[in-house]
Protein backbone atom coordinates (compact mmCIF):
# COMPACT_ATOMS: atom_id res chain seq x y z
CA UNK A 1 0.00 0.00 0.00
CA UNK A 2 2.71 2.47 0.99
CA UNK A 3 4.88 1.51 -1.95
CA UNK A 4 1.98 2.15 -4.29
CA UNK A 5 1.45 5.62 -2.88
CA UNK A 6 5.15 6.38 -3.27
CA UNK A 7 5.10 5.24 -6.87
CA UNK A 8 1.96 7.21 -7.61
CA UNK A 9 3.40 10.42 -6.14
CA UNK A 10 6.73 9.97 -7.91
CA UNK A 11 5.10 9.41 -11.30
CA UNK A 12 2.96 12.53 -10.95
CA UNK A 13 5.90 14.63 -9.77
CA UNK A 14 8.63 13.25 -12.06
CA UNK A 15 7.47 14.80 -15.32
CA UNK A 16 7.17 18.45 -14.21
CA UNK A 17 10.21 18.27 -11.94
CA UNK A 18 12.49 16.78 -14.60
CA UNK A 19 11.19 19.27 -17.15
CA UNK A 20 11.80 22.13 -14.75
CA UNK A 21 15.31 21.10 -13.74
CA UNK A 22 16.66 19.64 -16.99
CA UNK A 23 14.45 21.41 -19.53
CA UNK A 24 16.70 24.46 -20.00
CA UNK A 25 19.57 22.12 -21.04
CA UNK A 26 17.54 20.81 -23.97
CA UNK A 27 15.86 24.04 -24.98
CA UNK A 28 18.49 25.04 -27.53
CA UNK A 29 18.67 28.32 -29.40
CA UNK A 30 15.47 30.28 -30.00
CA UNK A 31 14.18 29.64 -33.51
CA UNK A 32 12.72 32.34 -35.76
CA UNK A 33 9.41 33.74 -34.55
CA UNK A 34 6.34 32.57 -36.43
CA UNK A 35 2.79 33.87 -36.47
CA UNK A 36 0.94 34.01 -33.12
CA UNK A 37 -1.22 31.14 -31.99
CA UNK A 38 -0.65 28.67 -34.81
CA UNK A 39 -0.72 24.91 -34.46
CA UNK A 40 1.74 22.66 -36.25
CA UNK A 41 4.04 24.11 -38.91
CA UNK A 42 7.31 22.77 -37.48
CA UNK A 43 6.26 23.62 -33.90
CA UNK A 44 5.27 20.47 -32.02
CA UNK A 45 2.97 22.29 -29.62
CA UNK A 46 2.28 25.35 -31.78
CA UNK A 47 3.27 28.96 -31.13
CA UNK A 48 2.40 31.34 -28.32
CA UNK A 49 1.06 34.92 -28.21
CA UNK A 50 4.18 36.43 -29.79
CA UNK A 51 4.91 33.53 -32.11
CA UNK A 52 7.52 31.69 -30.05
CA UNK A 53 7.67 27.90 -29.98
CA UNK A 54 5.48 26.71 -27.08
CA UNK A 55 7.51 23.56 -26.43
CA UNK A 56 10.70 25.57 -25.99
CA UNK A 57 8.94 27.95 -23.58
CA UNK A 58 7.65 24.94 -21.63
CA UNK A 59 11.20 23.57 -21.35
CA UNK A 60 12.45 26.90 -20.04
CA UNK A 61 9.48 27.87 -17.88
CA UNK A 62 9.61 25.41 -14.99
CA UNK A 63 12.90 26.41 -13.47
CA UNK A 64 11.88 29.87 -12.18
CA UNK A 65 8.77 28.48 -10.47
CA UNK A 66 10.61 25.62 -8.74
CA UNK A 67 13.68 27.66 -7.77
CA UNK A 68 11.63 30.55 -6.38
CA UNK A 69 9.53 28.14 -4.31
CA UNK A 70 12.56 26.31 -2.90
CA UNK A 71 14.38 29.55 -2.09
CA UNK A 72 11.33 31.05 -0.41
CA UNK A 73 10.76 27.96 1.75
CA UNK A 74 14.41 27.85 2.83
CA UNK A 75 14.41 31.56 3.58
CA UNK A 76 11.19 31.39 5.62
CA UNK A 77 12.68 28.64 7.78
CA UNK A 78 15.98 30.46 8.18
CA UNK A 79 14.06 33.20 10.01
CA UNK A 80 11.33 31.07 11.58
CA UNK A 81 13.63 28.50 13.21
CA UNK A 82 15.53 30.89 15.51
CA UNK A 83 12.32 32.84 16.23
CA UNK A 84 10.32 29.75 17.12
CA UNK A 85 13.11 28.14 19.16
CA UNK A 86 13.65 31.35 21.14
CA UNK A 87 9.93 31.62 21.84
CA UNK A 88 9.66 28.01 22.98
CA UNK A 89 12.82 27.84 25.10
CA UNK A 90 12.83 31.18 26.86
CA UNK A 91 11.71 31.35 30.48
CA UNK A 92 10.73 34.95 30.12
CA UNK A 93 7.08 35.02 29.25
CA UNK A 94 7.21 38.57 27.91
CA UNK A 95 9.88 37.60 25.39
CA UNK A 96 7.76 34.71 24.14
CA UNK A 97 4.75 37.04 23.84
CA UNK A 98 6.86 39.70 22.16
CA UNK A 99 8.07 37.21 19.57
CA UNK A 100 4.81 35.43 18.83
CA UNK A 101 2.00 37.97 19.25
CA UNK A 102 3.03 40.25 16.33
CA UNK A 103 3.15 37.18 14.13
CA UNK A 104 -0.39 36.24 15.18
CA UNK A 105 -1.50 39.63 13.94
CA UNK A 106 0.29 39.17 10.61
CA UNK A 107 -1.52 35.86 10.18
CA UNK A 108 -4.79 37.78 9.92
CA UNK A 109 -3.80 39.42 6.61
CA UNK A 110 -4.45 37.34 3.48
CA UNK A 111 -1.05 36.32 2.09
CA UNK A 112 -1.73 37.10 -1.56
CA UNK A 113 -2.99 40.55 -0.56
CA UNK A 114 0.31 41.36 1.17
CA UNK A 115 2.28 40.25 -1.88
CA UNK A 116 0.09 42.35 -4.20
CA UNK A 117 0.32 45.43 -1.97
CA UNK A 118 4.09 45.45 -1.92
CA UNK A 119 4.35 44.48 -5.57
CA UNK A 120 2.18 47.43 -6.60
CA UNK A 121 4.62 49.91 -5.09
CA UNK A 122 8.05 48.39 -5.71
CA UNK A 123 7.70 46.03 -8.74
CA UNK A 124 9.89 43.18 -7.50
CA UNK A 125 11.76 40.83 -9.81
CA UNK A 126 11.92 37.06 -9.45
CA UNK A 127 14.22 37.32 -6.42
CA UNK A 128 11.94 39.92 -4.89
CA UNK A 129 8.96 37.59 -5.18
CA UNK A 130 10.85 34.78 -3.46
CA UNK A 131 11.71 37.19 -0.65
CA UNK A 132 8.14 38.43 -0.35
CA UNK A 133 6.64 34.95 -0.33
CA UNK A 134 9.17 33.92 2.31
CA UNK A 135 8.20 36.93 4.46
CA UNK A 136 4.53 36.06 4.17
CA UNK A 137 5.24 32.50 5.30
CA UNK A 138 7.36 33.38 8.33
CA UNK A 139 4.50 33.84 10.85
CA UNK A 140 2.96 30.47 10.12
CA UNK A 141 6.32 28.68 10.05
CA UNK A 142 7.49 30.31 13.28
CA UNK A 143 4.25 29.27 14.92
CA UNK A 144 4.72 25.67 13.80
CA UNK A 145 8.35 25.64 14.99
CA UNK A 146 7.36 27.12 18.33
CA UNK A 147 4.57 24.58 18.86
CA UNK A 148 6.81 21.64 17.94
CA UNK A 149 9.70 22.91 20.05
CA UNK A 150 7.54 23.77 23.06
CA UNK A 151 6.38 20.19 23.23
CA UNK A 152 9.96 18.91 23.10
CA UNK A 153 11.19 21.56 25.54
CA UNK A 154 8.82 20.35 28.25
CA UNK A 155 10.53 16.95 28.41
CA UNK A 156 12.57 15.99 31.50
CA UNK A 157 15.69 15.56 29.43
CA UNK A 158 15.74 19.26 28.63
CA UNK A 159 15.49 20.08 32.34
CA UNK A 160 18.37 17.69 32.96
CA UNK A 161 20.49 19.34 30.28
CA UNK A 162 19.74 22.73 31.82
CA UNK A 163 20.74 21.58 35.29
CA UNK A 164 23.97 20.16 33.91
CA UNK A 165 24.72 23.63 32.65
CA UNK A 166 24.81 22.76 28.95
CA UNK A 167 24.96 25.74 26.63
CA UNK A 168 21.80 27.19 25.15
CA UNK A 169 22.81 26.28 21.60
CA UNK A 170 23.43 22.66 22.56
CA UNK A 171 20.09 22.34 24.28
CA UNK A 172 18.21 24.17 21.53
CA UNK A 173 19.74 22.58 18.46
CA UNK A 174 21.09 19.28 19.79
CA UNK A 175 18.09 18.22 21.81
CA UNK A 176 14.96 20.26 21.18
CA UNK A 177 15.63 20.85 17.51
CA UNK A 178 16.30 17.19 16.89
CA UNK A 179 13.24 16.06 18.78
CA UNK A 180 11.05 18.43 16.79
CA UNK A 181 12.62 17.51 13.47
CA UNK A 182 9.94 15.07 12.38
CA UNK A 183 7.09 17.50 13.02
CA UNK A 184 9.06 20.17 11.24
CA UNK A 185 9.60 17.96 8.20
CA UNK A 186 5.85 17.49 7.96
CA UNK A 187 5.36 21.22 8.27
CA UNK A 188 8.00 21.92 5.63
CA UNK A 189 6.06 19.79 3.15
CA UNK A 190 2.88 21.72 3.78
CA UNK A 191 4.82 24.97 3.58
CA UNK A 192 6.44 24.04 0.26
CA UNK A 193 3.09 23.31 -1.39
CA UNK A 194 1.74 26.59 -0.05
CA UNK A 195 4.75 28.49 -1.35
CA UNK A 196 4.50 26.86 -4.77
CA UNK A 197 0.87 27.91 -4.89
CA UNK A 198 1.67 31.51 -3.96
CA UNK A 199 4.62 31.87 -6.34
CA UNK A 200 2.64 30.49 -9.27
CA UNK A 201 -0.45 32.55 -8.48
CA UNK A 202 1.58 35.77 -8.17
CA UNK A 203 3.20 35.10 -11.55
CA UNK A 204 -0.21 34.40 -13.06
CA UNK A 205 -1.47 37.74 -11.77
CA UNK A 206 1.49 39.46 -13.41
CA UNK A 207 3.55 40.11 -10.30
CA UNK A 208 7.25 39.31 -10.18
CA UNK A 209 7.91 37.83 -13.59
CA UNK A 210 8.27 39.90 -16.79
CA UNK A 211 5.16 39.83 -19.01
CA UNK A 212 6.96 37.80 -21.70
CA UNK A 213 9.01 35.64 -19.32
CA UNK A 214 9.38 31.91 -19.91
CA UNK A 215 7.42 30.87 -16.82
CA UNK A 216 4.62 28.31 -16.73
CA UNK A 217 2.26 30.58 -14.79
CA UNK A 218 2.97 33.57 -17.03
CA UNK A 219 2.37 31.37 -20.08
CA UNK A 220 -1.07 30.40 -18.78
CA UNK A 221 -1.95 34.04 -18.28
CA UNK A 222 -0.55 35.49 -21.51
CA UNK A 223 -1.77 32.77 -23.84
CA UNK A 224 -5.33 32.83 -22.53
CA UNK A 225 -6.41 35.19 -25.29
CA UNK A 226 -5.68 32.53 -27.90
CA UNK A 227 -7.28 29.68 -26.01
CA UNK A 228 -9.93 29.14 -28.69
CA UNK A 229 -7.46 28.58 -31.53
CA UNK A 230 -4.39 27.27 -29.69
CA UNK A 231 -5.40 25.53 -26.44
CA UNK A 232 -2.02 23.79 -26.02
CA UNK A 233 -0.18 27.00 -25.18
CA UNK A 234 -2.40 27.23 -22.08
CA UNK A 235 -3.21 23.61 -21.31
CA UNK A 236 0.39 22.35 -21.36
CA UNK A 237 1.81 24.73 -18.71
CA UNK A 238 -1.40 24.49 -16.66
CA UNK A 239 -1.19 20.69 -16.65
CA UNK A 240 2.45 20.86 -15.59
CA UNK A 241 1.65 23.21 -12.70
CA UNK A 242 -1.19 20.94 -11.59
CA UNK A 243 1.13 17.92 -11.71
CA UNK A 244 3.91 19.76 -9.88
CA UNK A 245 1.76 20.93 -6.97
CA UNK A 246 -0.24 17.72 -6.76
CA UNK A 247 2.88 15.57 -6.91
CA UNK A 248 4.66 17.55 -4.19
CA UNK A 249 1.70 17.18 -1.88
CA UNK A 250 1.26 13.47 -2.60
CA UNK A 251 4.98 12.82 -2.12
CA UNK A 252 5.17 14.50 1.28
CA UNK A 253 2.02 12.73 2.37
CA UNK A 254 3.39 9.34 1.29
CA UNK A 255 6.72 10.06 2.97
CA UNK A 256 5.10 10.97 6.28
CA UNK A 257 2.31 8.39 6.37
CA UNK A 258 3.02 5.66 8.88
CA UNK A 259 6.02 7.47 10.30
CA UNK A 260 4.35 9.95 12.60
CA UNK A 261 3.50 8.30 15.91
CA UNK A 262 0.15 10.11 16.12
CA UNK A 263 -1.30 10.84 12.71
CA UNK A 264 -1.55 14.48 11.89
CA UNK A 265 -5.05 15.55 10.85
CA UNK A 266 -6.08 14.00 7.60
CA UNK A 267 -3.22 11.57 7.25
CA UNK A 268 -3.48 7.83 6.86
CA UNK A 269 -3.35 6.06 10.19
CA UNK A 270 -0.42 3.74 10.81
CA UNK A 271 -1.24 0.03 10.90
CA UNK A 272 0.41 -0.43 14.31
CA UNK A 273 -1.88 -0.35 17.37
CA UNK A 274 -1.92 3.14 18.73
CA UNK A 275 -2.74 4.74 22.06
CA UNK A 276 -6.39 5.68 22.51
CA UNK A 277 -7.03 9.07 20.91
CA UNK A 278 -7.20 12.00 23.25
CA UNK A 279 -10.83 12.78 23.84
CA UNK A 280 -11.68 16.28 22.76
CA UNK A 281 -14.31 16.64 25.48
CA UNK A 282 -11.84 16.15 28.32
CA UNK A 283 -9.47 18.93 29.25
CA UNK A 284 -6.11 18.49 27.58
CA UNK A 285 -3.32 17.20 29.82
CA UNK A 286 -0.66 19.64 30.96
CA UNK A 287 2.47 19.99 28.86
CA UNK A 288 4.54 17.89 31.26
CA UNK A 289 2.34 14.81 31.24
CA UNK A 290 1.76 14.93 27.51
CA UNK A 291 4.56 12.94 25.99
CA UNK A 292 5.30 10.42 28.70
CA UNK A 293 4.65 6.97 27.28
Amino acid at each position, binding site marked *: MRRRRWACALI*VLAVPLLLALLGPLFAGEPGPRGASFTTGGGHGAGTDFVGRDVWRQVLLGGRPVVLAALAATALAYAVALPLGLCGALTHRRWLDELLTR*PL*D*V*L*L*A*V*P*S*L*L*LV*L*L*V*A*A*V*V*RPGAAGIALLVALVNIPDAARAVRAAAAEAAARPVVEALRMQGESWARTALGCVGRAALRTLAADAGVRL*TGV*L*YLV*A*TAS*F*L*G*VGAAPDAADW*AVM*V*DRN*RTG*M*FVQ*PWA*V*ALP*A*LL*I*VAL*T*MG*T*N*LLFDAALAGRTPR*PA*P*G*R*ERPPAPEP*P*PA*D*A*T*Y*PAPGPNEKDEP
Partner: protein
Amino acid sequence: MTGLRPWLLRRLLLGAGQTVAVVLLVFALTEALPGDAAVALAGDQPDPARIAALRETMHLDRPAAERLVDWAAGLAHGDLGSSLVSGRPVSSYLADGFGPTLLLATLTLLLLVPLAGGLGVLAARHEGRLVDRLISAVTLGVYAVPEFALGVLLVTVVALRLEWLPPTAVGHGDDLTAHPAVLVLPVLVLLSRPVCSLARLVRAGMIDALAAPHIAHARRYGIPGARLRYAHALPNALAPAAQQLARTVDWLLCGVIVVEALFVIPGLGTVLMNAVAERDVPVLQGLAVVFAVTGVVLNLAADTVIYRCTPRAGVAA
Protein backbone atom coordinates in the same frame (compact mmCIF):
# COMPACT_ATOMS: atom_id res chain seq x y z
CA MET B 1 -21.71 27.94 29.10
CA THR B 2 -19.69 29.71 31.80
CA GLY B 3 -16.59 31.45 30.60
CA LEU B 4 -18.05 32.42 27.25
CA ARG B 5 -18.15 36.10 28.11
CA PRO B 6 -14.52 36.54 29.28
CA TRP B 7 -13.36 34.43 26.36
CA LEU B 8 -15.41 36.48 23.92
CA LEU B 9 -14.03 39.68 25.41
CA ARG B 10 -10.43 38.52 24.97
CA ARG B 11 -11.16 37.32 21.44
CA LEU B 12 -12.79 40.66 20.56
CA LEU B 13 -9.74 42.48 21.92
CA LEU B 14 -7.49 40.36 19.73
CA GLY B 15 -9.70 41.13 16.75
CA ALA B 16 -9.55 44.86 17.49
CA GLY B 17 -5.76 44.63 17.84
CA GLN B 18 -5.54 42.83 14.53
CA THR B 19 -7.66 45.48 12.83
CA VAL B 20 -5.45 48.30 14.12
CA ALA B 21 -2.31 46.39 13.14
CA VAL B 22 -3.69 45.76 9.66
CA VAL B 23 -4.37 49.46 9.14
CA LEU B 24 -0.83 50.31 10.28
CA LEU B 25 0.67 47.57 8.13
CA VAL B 26 -1.18 48.63 4.99
CA PHE B 27 -0.04 52.20 5.47
CA ALA B 28 3.56 51.16 6.17
CA LEU B 29 3.73 48.91 3.14
CA THR B 30 2.32 51.41 0.68
CA GLU B 31 3.50 54.82 1.87
CA ALA B 32 6.24 54.57 4.45
CA LEU B 33 8.57 52.46 2.31
CA PRO B 34 12.18 53.61 2.27
CA GLY B 35 12.81 56.08 -0.51
CA ASP B 36 10.42 58.47 -2.15
CA ALA B 37 6.96 56.99 -2.63
CA ALA B 38 6.18 59.45 -5.43
CA VAL B 39 9.22 58.37 -7.48
CA ALA B 40 8.34 54.71 -6.94
CA LEU B 41 4.74 55.35 -7.96
CA ALA B 42 5.64 57.29 -11.09
CA GLY B 43 7.49 54.11 -12.06
CA ASP B 44 7.59 53.63 -15.79
CA GLN B 45 7.10 57.34 -16.56
CA PRO B 46 9.52 59.19 -14.22
CA ASP B 47 8.46 62.58 -15.45
CA PRO B 48 9.25 65.40 -12.93
CA ALA B 49 5.86 67.03 -13.43
CA ARG B 50 4.07 63.76 -12.67
CA ILE B 51 6.21 63.15 -9.59
CA ALA B 52 5.43 66.65 -8.34
CA ALA B 53 1.72 66.11 -8.97
CA LEU B 54 1.81 62.80 -7.09
CA ARG B 55 3.60 64.42 -4.19
CA GLU B 56 0.95 67.13 -4.15
CA THR B 57 -2.10 64.82 -4.19
CA MET B 58 -0.65 62.40 -1.63
CA HIS B 59 0.58 65.23 0.64
CA LEU B 60 3.98 63.59 0.75
CA ASP B 61 5.60 66.77 2.02
CA ARG B 62 3.90 66.25 5.38
CA PRO B 63 5.37 63.83 7.94
CA ALA B 64 4.23 60.19 7.62
CA ALA B 65 2.73 60.12 11.13
CA GLU B 66 0.47 63.08 10.31
CA ARG B 67 -0.71 61.46 7.07
CA LEU B 68 -1.37 58.21 8.92
CA VAL B 69 -3.51 59.97 11.53
CA ASP B 70 -5.49 61.75 8.81
CA TRP B 71 -6.02 58.56 6.84
CA ALA B 72 -7.00 56.52 9.91
CA ALA B 73 -9.42 59.24 11.03
CA GLY B 74 -10.95 59.16 7.55
CA LEU B 75 -11.27 55.36 7.75
CA ALA B 76 -13.11 55.62 11.03
CA HIS B 77 -15.67 57.86 9.34
CA GLY B 78 -15.92 55.62 6.29
CA ASP B 79 -13.97 58.09 4.16
CA LEU B 80 -11.35 56.16 2.20
CA GLY B 81 -9.95 59.05 0.16
CA SER B 82 -10.09 59.29 -3.60
CA SER B 83 -8.33 57.64 -6.52
CA LEU B 84 -5.04 59.05 -7.87
CA VAL B 85 -5.99 58.14 -11.42
CA SER B 86 -9.61 59.18 -11.82
CA GLY B 87 -10.20 61.33 -8.73
CA ARG B 88 -13.36 59.36 -7.91
CA PRO B 89 -13.87 58.47 -4.23
CA VAL B 90 -12.54 55.03 -3.31
CA SER B 91 -15.90 54.08 -1.80
CA SER B 92 -17.51 54.29 -5.25
CA TYR B 93 -14.95 51.76 -6.54
CA LEU B 94 -15.85 49.50 -3.62
CA ALA B 95 -19.56 49.89 -4.29
CA ASP B 96 -19.06 48.95 -7.95
CA GLY B 97 -17.19 45.74 -7.23
CA PHE B 98 -19.05 44.69 -4.12
CA GLY B 99 -22.06 42.95 -5.67
CA PRO B 100 -20.37 40.27 -7.82
CA THR B 101 -17.78 39.46 -5.13
CA LEU B 102 -20.41 39.14 -2.41
CA LEU B 103 -22.45 36.86 -4.67
CA LEU B 104 -19.44 34.61 -5.37
CA ALA B 105 -18.37 34.49 -1.72
CA THR B 106 -21.87 33.79 -0.40
CA LEU B 107 -22.52 31.01 -2.90
CA THR B 108 -19.13 29.43 -2.10
CA LEU B 109 -19.57 29.60 1.66
CA LEU B 110 -23.13 28.24 1.43
CA LEU B 111 -21.91 25.22 -0.53
CA LEU B 112 -18.58 24.82 1.29
CA VAL B 113 -19.79 23.83 4.74
CA PRO B 114 -22.31 21.10 3.83
CA LEU B 115 -20.09 19.76 1.04
CA ALA B 116 -16.93 19.50 3.15
CA GLY B 117 -18.82 18.17 6.16
CA GLY B 118 -20.70 15.63 4.07
CA LEU B 119 -17.60 14.35 2.29
CA GLY B 120 -15.66 14.14 5.55
CA VAL B 121 -18.39 12.22 7.38
CA LEU B 122 -18.90 9.93 4.38
CA ALA B 123 -15.19 9.09 4.26
CA ALA B 124 -15.01 8.56 8.02
CA ARG B 125 -17.99 6.19 7.96
CA HIS B 126 -16.28 3.99 5.39
CA GLU B 127 -12.79 4.31 6.84
CA GLY B 128 -10.27 2.25 4.87
CA ARG B 129 -12.75 1.18 2.20
CA LEU B 130 -12.98 2.23 -1.44
CA VAL B 131 -15.15 5.33 -0.85
CA ASP B 132 -12.74 6.61 1.79
CA ARG B 133 -9.65 5.91 -0.30
CA LEU B 134 -11.20 7.64 -3.30
CA ILE B 135 -12.24 10.75 -1.33
CA SER B 136 -8.90 10.89 0.47
CA ALA B 137 -6.85 10.61 -2.70
CA VAL B 138 -8.83 13.22 -4.63
CA THR B 139 -8.94 15.73 -1.77
CA LEU B 140 -5.22 15.29 -1.13
CA GLY B 141 -4.38 15.85 -4.78
CA VAL B 142 -6.64 18.78 -5.59
CA TYR B 143 -5.93 20.57 -2.30
CA ALA B 144 -2.54 21.89 -3.43
CA VAL B 145 -3.43 22.93 -6.97
CA PRO B 146 -3.53 26.69 -7.69
CA GLU B 147 -6.97 27.91 -8.72
CA PHE B 148 -5.81 29.44 -11.97
CA ALA B 149 -4.31 26.20 -13.33
CA LEU B 150 -7.37 24.17 -12.37
CA GLY B 151 -9.69 26.85 -13.69
CA VAL B 152 -7.95 27.14 -17.03
CA LEU B 153 -8.06 23.38 -17.53
CA LEU B 154 -11.75 23.27 -16.59
CA VAL B 155 -12.47 26.07 -19.05
CA THR B 156 -10.56 24.28 -21.82
CA VAL B 157 -12.43 21.02 -21.31
CA VAL B 158 -15.92 22.03 -20.15
CA ALA B 159 -16.37 25.33 -21.93
CA LEU B 160 -14.30 25.06 -25.11
CA ARG B 161 -14.34 21.31 -25.96
CA LEU B 162 -17.72 20.26 -24.63
CA GLU B 163 -19.32 23.71 -24.82
CA TRP B 164 -21.50 23.05 -21.78
CA LEU B 165 -20.87 26.34 -19.99
CA PRO B 166 -19.70 29.83 -20.98
CA PRO B 167 -15.89 30.25 -20.58
CA THR B 168 -15.98 33.75 -19.05
CA ALA B 169 -18.48 36.26 -17.70
CA VAL B 170 -17.70 38.73 -20.49
CA GLY B 171 -20.82 40.38 -21.92
CA HIS B 172 -23.07 39.72 -18.94
CA GLY B 173 -22.37 42.99 -17.16
CA ASP B 174 -22.96 43.27 -13.45
CA ASP B 175 -26.13 41.25 -13.39
CA LEU B 176 -24.71 37.80 -12.83
CA THR B 177 -27.76 36.43 -11.04
CA ALA B 178 -29.70 36.51 -14.31
CA HIS B 179 -27.15 34.13 -15.88
CA PRO B 180 -26.54 31.38 -13.34
CA ALA B 181 -24.60 29.32 -15.93
CA VAL B 182 -21.84 31.93 -15.83
CA LEU B 183 -21.32 31.31 -12.11
CA VAL B 184 -20.97 27.52 -12.17
CA LEU B 185 -17.29 27.31 -13.12
CA PRO B 186 -16.08 30.20 -10.91
CA VAL B 187 -17.80 28.80 -7.82
CA LEU B 188 -16.51 25.32 -8.60
CA VAL B 189 -12.94 26.59 -8.87
CA LEU B 190 -13.31 28.71 -5.74
CA LEU B 191 -14.60 25.70 -3.80
CA SER B 192 -11.84 23.31 -4.86
CA ARG B 193 -9.17 24.03 -2.26
CA PRO B 194 -11.20 24.82 0.87
CA VAL B 195 -13.53 21.84 0.36
CA CYS B 196 -10.55 19.49 0.11
CA SER B 197 -8.76 20.77 3.19
CA LEU B 198 -11.87 20.95 5.34
CA ALA B 199 -13.13 17.53 4.23
CA ARG B 200 -9.79 15.97 5.20
CA LEU B 201 -9.86 17.56 8.63
CA VAL B 202 -13.50 16.65 9.26
CA ARG B 203 -12.70 13.06 8.26
CA ALA B 204 -9.75 12.84 10.66
CA GLY B 205 -11.66 14.51 13.49
CA MET B 206 -14.70 12.31 12.87
CA ILE B 207 -12.65 9.09 13.01
CA ASP B 208 -11.19 10.19 16.35
CA ALA B 209 -14.55 11.33 17.67
CA LEU B 210 -16.33 8.09 16.67
CA ALA B 211 -13.72 6.11 18.62
CA ALA B 212 -14.16 8.24 21.76
CA PRO B 213 -15.58 6.62 24.92
CA HIS B 214 -18.64 8.85 25.12
CA ILE B 215 -19.70 7.78 21.64
CA ALA B 216 -19.27 4.12 22.54
CA HIS B 217 -21.39 4.76 25.60
CA ALA B 218 -24.07 6.55 23.60
CA ARG B 219 -24.07 3.63 21.16
CA ARG B 220 -24.69 1.21 24.01
CA TYR B 221 -27.71 3.27 24.98
CA GLY B 222 -29.09 2.60 21.52
CA ILE B 223 -28.99 6.13 20.12
CA PRO B 224 -29.62 5.83 16.37
CA GLY B 225 -26.64 6.11 14.00
CA ALA B 226 -27.47 9.37 12.27
CA ARG B 227 -28.11 11.20 15.54
CA LEU B 228 -24.93 9.72 16.98
CA ARG B 229 -22.89 10.92 14.03
CA TYR B 230 -24.31 14.38 13.57
CA ALA B 231 -25.34 15.40 17.09
CA HIS B 232 -22.68 13.71 19.22
CA ALA B 233 -19.58 13.06 17.12
CA LEU B 234 -19.60 15.84 14.51
CA PRO B 235 -19.34 18.83 16.91
CA ASN B 236 -16.14 17.33 18.34
CA ALA B 237 -14.85 16.56 14.87
CA LEU B 238 -15.19 20.23 13.97
CA ALA B 239 -12.57 21.32 16.52
CA PRO B 240 -9.53 20.32 14.45
CA ALA B 241 -11.19 21.83 11.38
CA ALA B 242 -11.47 25.08 13.32
CA GLN B 243 -7.74 25.67 13.23
CA GLN B 244 -7.86 25.33 9.48
CA LEU B 245 -10.72 27.80 9.13
CA ALA B 246 -8.35 30.75 9.42
CA ARG B 247 -6.42 29.45 6.43
CA THR B 248 -9.64 28.77 4.56
CA VAL B 249 -10.76 32.37 4.87
CA ASP B 250 -7.34 33.44 3.61
CA TRP B 251 -7.68 31.09 0.64
CA LEU B 252 -11.17 32.32 -0.19
CA LEU B 253 -10.00 35.94 -0.31
CA CYS B 254 -7.01 35.02 -2.49
CA GLY B 255 -9.18 32.72 -4.59
CA VAL B 256 -11.68 35.50 -5.26
CA ILE B 257 -8.91 37.67 -6.75
CA VAL B 258 -7.69 34.87 -9.03
CA VAL B 259 -11.14 33.66 -10.06
CA GLU B 260 -12.30 37.15 -10.95
CA ALA B 261 -9.19 37.69 -13.07
CA LEU B 262 -9.65 34.31 -14.74
CA PHE B 263 -13.35 34.57 -15.53
CA VAL B 264 -13.38 38.35 -16.07
CA ILE B 265 -15.92 39.05 -13.33
CA PRO B 266 -16.11 42.76 -12.46
CA GLY B 267 -15.78 42.37 -8.68
CA LEU B 268 -13.47 43.67 -5.97
CA GLY B 269 -10.63 41.42 -7.11
CA THR B 270 -10.69 43.01 -10.56
CA VAL B 271 -10.75 46.49 -8.99
CA LEU B 272 -7.75 45.46 -6.87
CA MET B 273 -5.75 44.14 -9.84
CA ASN B 274 -6.50 47.31 -11.83
CA ALA B 275 -5.30 49.42 -8.91
CA VAL B 276 -2.11 47.33 -8.74
CA ALA B 277 -1.51 47.84 -12.45
CA GLU B 278 -2.13 51.60 -12.22
CA ARG B 279 -0.35 52.00 -8.85
CA ASP B 280 -3.44 53.70 -7.52
CA VAL B 281 -2.40 53.77 -3.86
CA PRO B 282 -5.59 55.12 -2.20
CA VAL B 283 -7.75 52.49 -3.95
CA LEU B 284 -5.23 49.79 -2.99
CA GLN B 285 -5.20 50.90 0.63
CA GLY B 286 -8.98 51.01 0.82
CA LEU B 287 -9.36 47.55 -0.72
CA ALA B 288 -6.60 46.09 1.42
CA VAL B 289 -8.26 47.37 4.58
CA VAL B 290 -11.65 46.02 3.47
CA PHE B 291 -10.23 42.58 2.55
CA ALA B 292 -8.14 42.31 5.70
CA VAL B 293 -10.89 43.46 8.05
CA THR B 294 -13.24 40.97 6.39
CA GLY B 295 -10.64 38.30 7.15
CA VAL B 296 -10.41 39.37 10.79
CA VAL B 297 -14.20 39.42 11.23
CA LEU B 298 -14.72 36.04 9.54
CA ASN B 299 -12.01 34.49 11.71
CA LEU B 300 -13.64 35.94 14.79
CA ALA B 301 -17.03 34.55 13.77
CA ALA B 302 -15.55 31.12 13.02
CA ASP B 303 -13.75 30.97 16.37
CA THR B 304 -16.94 31.94 18.20
CA VAL B 305 -18.97 29.23 16.45
CA ILE B 306 -16.33 26.63 17.25
CA TYR B 307 -16.14 27.75 20.87
CA ARG B 308 -19.88 27.19 21.17
CA CYS B 309 -19.54 23.72 19.62
CA THR B 310 -16.71 22.46 21.82
CA PRO B 311 -16.28 24.90 24.72
CA ARG B 312 -13.46 22.97 26.36
CA ALA B 313 -11.33 22.71 23.26
CA GLY B 314 -10.33 26.32 24.02
CA VAL B 315 -9.73 28.00 20.69
CA ALA B 316 -6.71 30.25 21.09
CA ALA B 317 -7.60 33.79 22.03
